[in-house]
């Protein structure tokens, strides 16, 4: 059986810059897969390309075996794939409730959307208290929760989350991961998450890809990578046992 998501030899170019060089990855139904990598590794580009926001120059992206390359983002959303982009992209002038409704219109079934919102708000009591607020007035953590809730309103099977921890306090990050894992159970989500650091991720990810310079350096089961040496080597290009190249040069 084909994986839920397969990315094969994906390359993306921004002008002269190759942001992704023939990157491949796959995600099976029900898995939690994480992509980690330093700034500029191409993590966001990978998720944006999968969600249809960036057009690759070559390679293939298949959802349940069907190629989705070149489709518009709104079509891909209808294939039950949803992206929580980096930086959250909340509609600040809309109310919290309207932000959530946007995610539900696609279903074309008002009753189902309303029921979905009710169910979701159970996971996000802070959002329920602020339904009528302009979303711009929410704190950073609340906005991240809104971004996740709004994406889940589209009833995805595969949820892509780009750096949910960005700019948030550790306590809030823990809350957000807790909610993501709850939602994974309740809504039967498969998760593909980007992060810069492996610290939190290793605890609950099934598998990990380390991306650097637009290419996959290492992939493996989180359990096998837990000692950190392989990840460190892939992430920085040198291991903890080696001396850093800069020092050697000096």
């Amino acid at each position, binding site marked *: 059986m084909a994986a839920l998501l397969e990315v094969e030899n994906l390359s993306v170019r921004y002008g002269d810059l190759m942001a992704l060089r023939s990157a491949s990855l796959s995600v099976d139904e029900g898995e939690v897969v994480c992509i980690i990598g330093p700034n500029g590794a191409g993590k966001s580009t990978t998720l944006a390309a999968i969600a249809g*926001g960036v057009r690759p120059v070559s390679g293939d992206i298949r959802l349940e075996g069907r190629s989705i390359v070149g489709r518009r983002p709104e079509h891909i959303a209808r294939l039950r794939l949803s992206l929580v982009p980096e930086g959250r992209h909340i509609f600040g002038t*809309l109310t919290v409730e309207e932000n959530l409704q946007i995610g539900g219109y696609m279903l074309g079934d008002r009753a189902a959307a309303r029921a979905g919102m009710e169910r979701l708000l159970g996971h996000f009591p802070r959002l329920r208290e602020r339904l009528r607020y302009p979303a711009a007035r929410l704190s950073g953590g609340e906005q991240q929760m809104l971004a996740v809730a709004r994406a889940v309103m589209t009833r995805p099977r595969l949820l892509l989350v780009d750096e949910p921890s960005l700019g948030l306090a550790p306590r809030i990050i823990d809350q957000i991961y807790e909610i993501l894992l709850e939602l994974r159970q309740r809504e039967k989500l498969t998760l593909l998450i980007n992060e810069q650091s492996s610290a939190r991720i290793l605890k609950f990810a099934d598998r990990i890809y380390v991306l650097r310079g637009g290419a996959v350096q290492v992939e493996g089961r989180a359990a096998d990578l837990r000692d950190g040496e392989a990840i460190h080597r892939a992430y920085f290009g040198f291991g903890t046992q080696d001396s850093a190249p800069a020092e050697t040069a000096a």
Partner: protein
Amino acid sequence: MIGFLQHLIDALALGSIYALTALGIGLLFGILRLINFAHGDLITVGAYALIVPAADVTARLMIGSWTPAAVVVAISMIVVVAALLTDAAVFRPLRTASPPTLMIASFAVSYIIQNGILMFYGARPKAVDFWSGANVQITIGALRVPLLQLITLAVTLVLMAALTVFLRRTPQGVQMRAAAEDFRMAQYLGVRGNVVIGLAFAISGVLAAAVSMLYITQSGSLTFQMGVPLALFAFVAVVIGGMGSLAGAVAGGFLLGFIVTMLQAYLPPDLRAFRDAFAFAFVILVLLVRPSGLLPSRTTVERV
């Protein structure tokens, strides 16, 4: 005092025309970052659609002679179709183009529409007798007010209220506001980009059609370039109001109407010929004090 009130009503009527035009331009700018100078020419299309296509100087009414309700429906439909055609033929293929490219494309559309009208109707201005009954003066206390000005104001308020309800209360309206704020994010959430944009063009068409009818009733003359100054003034209104803010576009339209009317009324006669220069000087002053306009939209400020 009575004189000033009289001018104030003139200002509100002129401001209404600018505000309606500015709303049409502002709506598309919000979603597409398109500064659509061809919006003025859609107004021209609506005006010419009233008459029989011929090069005669005195126009004979065609659609314009139908019952008012039929006229409103027919002219609105024609202008909406014209607006959708400009999207399908020009702006849709340029979806990923930069704002300057889009603006230049709108100039091209503007010239194409003007030349189309020239071909079928000739270049000379035409006198037209359309709904001239609406120009009667009615007396309110010591004021004598042309009925048309009251109609203009009422139509403007109704259209603004309808647009507000649409944007706040309907799924399509909420999607349109979301797309105006962050188009790509809206698409990620399943909002169909081309549907929202098409709807925005259709609404801008309805607004342009309303201006066509109101404006022709008042001026009684048609020229193939009549929409150009309207689009220019409306664009200025959009800028004064704060690019990307619809409330700002309306405020800017009324402010501009007020300035132009009051300059016309109170400038010494020798200087009246320079009215528009004074008006634009005032606009520059407004922008020096408030560089992002009267009611800037948060999103555009961030984006620029």
